[in-house]
């Protein structure tokens, strides 16, 4: 019987993955450590249930997804301060650092439903392929592709909105 990885093993090998996933699933940066702690404590609790039938990352992704979704739900109930295009564009105009580029990306992700967002991030950012994503999200492969299509469309729409709002103040500033 294969030995189960320890919590520490999983933590060490998947720390980066968990951080990236949570961040791109919309957990705010300041809350990521808390959310990660949640994730790994779930891992700790459920480690004995992990049967090795799927990859650790698959199993872990589901936990991350649940934690992130739950946090998003609560954040909506409690307080949600959406980043407006105008805020973003003001920041963009001052700074084109990677941090700001990432903020832009997250802002664009906000235009997607969470399920689409999950597919989009796994495919476009994390580089998983369709079948792998289908396993992670426990949905049929065609669903993965259709979510990806919808996600890309939302991404493109949000991007053109952003572009438009970036151009406007520039003109105003010139007047």
């Amino acid at each position, binding site marked *: 019987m294969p030995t189960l990885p320890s919590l520490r093993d999983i933590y060490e090998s998947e720390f980066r993955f968990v951080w990236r996933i949570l961040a791109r699933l919309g957990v705010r940066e300041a809350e990521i450590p808390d959310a990660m702690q949640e994730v790994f404590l*779930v891992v700790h609790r459920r480690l004995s249930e992990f049967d090795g039938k799927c990859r650790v990352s698959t199993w872990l992704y589901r936990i991350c997804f649940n934690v992130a979704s739950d946090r998003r739900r609560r954040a909506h109930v409690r307080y949600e301060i959406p980043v407006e295009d105008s805020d973003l564009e003001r920041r963009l105009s001052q700074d084109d650092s990677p941090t700001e580029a990432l903020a832009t990306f997250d802002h664009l992700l906000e235009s997607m439903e969470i399920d689409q967002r999950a597919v989009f991030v796994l495919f476009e950012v994390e580089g998983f392929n369709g079948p792998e994503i289908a396993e992670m999200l426990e949905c049929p492969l065609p669903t993965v592709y259709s979510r990806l299509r919808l996600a890309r469309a939302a991404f493109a729409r949000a991007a053109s909105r952003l572009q438009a709002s970036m151009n406007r103040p520039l003109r105003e500033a010139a007047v």
Partner: protein
Amino acid sequence: MTDPSRLLDQTLEPVLRSSLEAAIAAEPPASLRERLWDEIALTLPAAGVLLDATTSSSATATATATTAPATLTTATTAPATLVTATTATDAVGLASKATVSATTMLQAIETTTRGASTKAILTAGSTTAAKAAVAAQGVGLGAIAGKAVAIGLGIGLGLNAVAGVVERNWETPVPTAKSAQIGGVPRTPEEQVKAVRVMTPSAERVPMASEPSAPTSAAANAPAISAQRSMSEVSKPSSVASTESLDEARGAPTTDELRDESQLLSRAREALRDARAGAALEFLGEHERRYSEGRLRQEREALYVQALVRAGRTTEAQRRGKSFLASFPMSPHSERIRALLRDDASSTQ
């Protein structure tokens, strides 16, 4: 069915390309890995209990006279009962009773409050006497939001009276997210993982153990033991521990002392995070001088080894680490100390 080509491989607006590339390149902050593990390790002994709740034996807790009491009962080999209550209710007047079976366990409660003082009670008990009386002294740490110190007393198997104190981040403001958890709102299982933050509405009583319970007045002054108090201590009876219960019940260490201990270690931890190993060692040395056998000594020792390694004081780190492992082989910190010593040994070869 085949995958479409990735966006990154397509022609993209520059702003989109740079944003996508930024996401692909995003890395967690370097310091987070270790820091977070420390926090997780701290939570584990408590989580181990909380998470296995409802599996085996039963635990009961009753809280009365609170507007928003919350009860959490847990059970593993060492069940523990956690009672938390918000509002300004006098904790001692809570008349909390807890009956727990099996060995003693420890718990910690982290509660936050908006304005009103939070009272939290934690209890842990054992089969033998099956009577654990609890009292809590809430310590309001701020007018607006404070973290309450949960103090409880569990008497079990002649081992430890166990209680918890949340030991970290005393000085930091309480995030809203945490404050919002106070009202006894049921949350997801994942959330409950966070041992000390778990609350369920008082209406949801967990099945009671058959043992009778009775409060003991001694509990009123029950001092606390840190969350880090490890299972190894619990499972390893010692003369110190067995006498501790009584001493503690009479109020030997005060909450002030506990807070002081906690603050020293917090400062040491902060110094370590800022790569100031020397400063960390000073705080740890101070803790050792003042609280050689303090409640948080396991935590201190774990930090000590870490700080010594960072400071390049290999021999001392090895000595201290080995001595810790000999004393507390099953401590939640042991795994990390072993890893530190291993890394340290390999890096100096």
